[in-house]
Structure formats: C-alpha cells, structure tokens
C-alpha cells in the first residue's frame, strides 16, 4: 500500500461546541483506502510537526475528521473554512481489526476518543453497543449519529446527561446484560486502563487506540514509542505503524 499526501479541499465544516469541530475533506484516493481506526497526519501552516487526527467516517470520496482544540495547532486548524485546503498524509496506522459484521462488539469511547468509533458503529450496526463518555452535556458529540446506527448509551462525569459516571460503569452494566466478542476502546489513558481491566476480568478481547506525539507518522523516525509486551519481552512499539490500535494485553497503559 502506498502512502498518499496532498492538499485537499474542505467541503463542509461543523462546530459541535466551543472547541470541537468536524471537517469533511474530499480526497477520493485516500478515502478509498482508509479503514476504521486509521488516522491522517495533518500539516498546519507555520508548525513544524504534522498533527495526527483519526478518521471518524469515510465514504468513497470523503474523509470526515472530528477534532478538539487542544493547543496552538488545532486552534489554527479550527480556523480553516470550507473551500480552503488541508494538507493530509494518510491513511496511516493499522486500524481496528475486522470481525464478521455479526460479531457482538462494544464500542467504548471517551471525549474526543468517541469519533473514531463511529465508523465501527456503521460496520457492526445493531450488533454494536456504543458506550460514550463525556465530561458533561455541553461536551456531548455525535450521540445522535451513533444512536442512528447502534445501541447507544451515554455517560457524563457530572450526570448532566445520561448515566452519571464513567464509561467503565456503562461497560460493567452492558456486560451484565450479556457477553461480547470484542471491545474497541478509544479515549483518555485512565479510561483505557479501566476498560482494559474490565475486559481482562471478563476475558473479552479488547483493542485500544492510543495516542503518542508523532513526527513522520509512517514509521521512519521512531519517536512515537509505546511500551508493549510481545513474546514476554517489553519493547517500544510505534503508535503510527504498530498502532494506533493495540491489544489491551499487549500495550502497557
């Protein structure tokens, strides 16, 4: 598979709340090759390093990216408007493993970790349960779009919407209702740890998507190290090529 890189037009922009945006970018060749869980590395003028952003959804022509303003780079990114172009390098990373569409899967997402799971909701449809955690009602995103695809449950830390508590609480509940073939998780480290522990206890395979600072995005620079255990030996794998999706028993969270 070849990597692609180029400047592609932003054809639509949504703002969800004070700091979260959705961009639809027309890049047919790249979109056609992308699988759920992969990401693109985005160049923002004036910054040395590209910014990795997961693909939220794709069709044959268009990639959808959802991102949150976290620092200077994403702030500049949010200022782009439809008609302007974004410089993307992708598709990158391994993506989520593919199960038969009838597999019972749990999608556990927290905050800005929620968007990459939407593509999976579309794949597994009603066989998927989405457990989405947010700080509060204001930061809730994509809930309607998940609900249109699959069984969707929301938790907020402050109880201002849905379940009062964390995604881990929703997961315990969901597992009490019946088994699952796999858990796909994406979100803050603390959440991933909690999910991985529950998966371990319940003997359910669990795949987590992790983050690390990057430069090349393609395995050439080795900066995006991530502690993993393979064949009983602890090594530094690389998020951009060995990940971002790792088995929860393999990665040291």
């Amino acid at each position, binding site marked *: 598979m070849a990597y692609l890189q180029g400047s592609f037009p932003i054809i639509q922009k949504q703002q969800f709340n004070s700091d979260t945006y959705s961009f639809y970018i027309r890049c047919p060749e790249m979109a056609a090759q992308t699988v759920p869980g992969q990401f693109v590395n985005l160049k923002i003028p004036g910054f040395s390093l590209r910014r990795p952003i997961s693909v939220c959804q794709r069709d044959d022509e268009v990639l959808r990216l959802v991102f949150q303003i976290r620092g200077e780079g994403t702030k500049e990114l949010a200022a782009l408007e439809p008609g302007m172009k974004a410089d993307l390098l992708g598709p990158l990373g391994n993506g989520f493993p593919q199960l038969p569409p009838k597999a019972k899967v749990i999608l556990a997402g927290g905050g800005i970790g929620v968007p990459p799971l939407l593509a999976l909701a579309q794949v597994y449809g009603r066989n998927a349960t989405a457990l989405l955690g947010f700080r509060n009602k204001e930061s809730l995103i994509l809930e309607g779009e998940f609900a249109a695809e699959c069984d969707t449950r929301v938790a907020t830390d402050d109880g201002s919407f849905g379940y009062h508590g964390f995604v881990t609480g929703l997961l315990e509940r969901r597992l009490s209702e019946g088994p699952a073939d796999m858990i796909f998780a994406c979100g803050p480290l603390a959440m991933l740890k909690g999910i991985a522990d529950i998966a371990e206890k319940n003997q359910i395979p669990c795949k987590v998507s992790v983050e690390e600072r990057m430069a090349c995005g*393609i395995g050439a620079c080795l900066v995006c190290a991530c502690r993993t255990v393979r064949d009983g030996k602890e090594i530094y794998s690389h998020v951009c090529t060995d990940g971002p999706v790792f088995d929860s028993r393999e990665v040291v969270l």
Partner: protein
Amino acid sequence: MNLEVKIAGVTFKNPIILASGCCGFGQEYDKFYPMEALGGLSLKGLTPNERQGNPPPRVAETPSGMLNSVGLQNPGIDAFLERELPNLAGRDTVKIANAAGATVEEYAYMAQRLDASPIDMIEANISCPNVKQGGAAFGTDCSMAAQVVTAMRKNTTKPLMVKLSPNVTDIVSIAKSVEDAGADAISLINTLLGMRIDISTRRPVLHQNVGGLSGPAVFPIALRMVWQVAGAVKIPVVGLGGIAKWQDVIEMMIAGAKAVQIGAALFGDPFTPVKILEGIQQWMEQKGISDINDIIGSVQPY
C-alpha cells in the same frame, strides 16, 4: 546536466541523501517515490546490540524545528544485516550504515561487522546527544573522536564518513582530528542539544528532559560549520542540518558541501527530496551550470 558527485570513491547519482534516523531503513519513503530517485540513504543508527531507546515522549515542537530524544532505538547490527539490509539489495542508491557504540571497542566492532556487509559506506555517529554512554562524548573531544576513528579505520576498508556534533566550541579542530585519524569524509551537523518545558505540567516535554534540535532553525549554524570545516580539511564534507528547500542545498554546496542530507524536512513534506532535485535542476538550467560539482565551495567570502 551532471548531478553526480563522488565522495570517498563512492558515486552518488545526485547529492541528495536522506539523513540517518529520519528514513528508517529506507522502506518508508520508498512508498512515496522509489529510493532510486535519491543519491543515497543514511540508514537508522545502529549499535552492536538491540536498543529500545528512550521512553516517550520523544518529540517536541519548536519554532521552525523539532527536538527528538529517540536514543538510537534499533534492532542491533545482527538483525540489521539479516533482516533489513537484504531488503535494499539490488536497489540503485548508495546505502550508508550509520553506526554508534558505547565504547571505542564497540565502534571498532561495528566497523568490522559492516566491513563484511554489502553496505556502500559507513557513517560513524560520534554525535548522538540522546544516549547516556558514549554518543556525544566522543564527538565533543578531539582525542576521543580520533580514537574512535582510528579503531574503526583498522577494521574496515569501506569508505568511512564521520558525523560531527555541533555542540562544541571548536568544530574545526574536531574535524581535523578525525581527518588525521583516517576518516574519508565528514558529515555535519548532528542535532543541537535543546529543551522544552510544558508550562501546564511543569515537566520537560521530552521524557529524556533534553533532546536534539533539528529543522530549519538550525540551518544557519549548520551552514557556518560546513563552511568552516570545508575550508579546513581536505576530505569531502557532507552538509546537513535544517535543509528544507532547494535553495538551502545550493547554499550548503556553495559553502563547500559535496553532498547534503535531509532529515526533519521529510516529516513535514515527504516529497522534499524530489522537489529539491527539481528545483536544483531548474536553477542549473537557468544559470547555465552544467555540472553541480562546479558550485561546490564556490562561495566568495569577504
């Protein structure tokens, strides 16, 4: 139009080489354009044994640059020779092995192992700022630098290029030491030691606290050092540090570099080397320069 340059008996079809640590073992950027487009590849730094490198975070952004603290993560010389180098067999570009060690003996061992390999050239990395033992220490002291080179020289007849650290008071005397000790060529610069702190956590951004600065920010320092060294030694000099556009390559070559390497710029634009080659050719055509060798060292200082 001739773009070919010769360094220590090795012919590069053009003066553009990818810098060590920025292009893995050559396979990654080959997915964008065939490595045959390049004069050469300086492969990821190797050590006698596998190294896992430093804990993350290993990268920080800086104005017109970046810091890295990879710390020579590599599979070790054995795995390289068995698993990686064969992938490059038959590929028409100059393959340079970048080698480091924690002791003089380890450097000597690396030279010996590489001598028996199909590698085209050895680049002795005596300038890695990101490892505790050895690394930079060898590159910041004339006599230690010379010891490393002498020991490697004994063990190999392959062209031996020595890569210098810019974190020194007097780059010229280091360059002369490695020339006297038998180096066939010099490459410079490796990264400058830098730091960033996350003001919200009050922790260094890099887990190693400090790391190596590269990218356009360092270009003027690299150019100055290349000019100084090229004027002081007789062996060829390969210039690097902050090169991002064709103009930078021309500047480096005018300053005295016979070839250049490109590192951090790849991360922003993987096609940088290809665009640079196009730019150089256009410029040569415009200026009526038929041989790139004609510009090397042609600077007219005041």
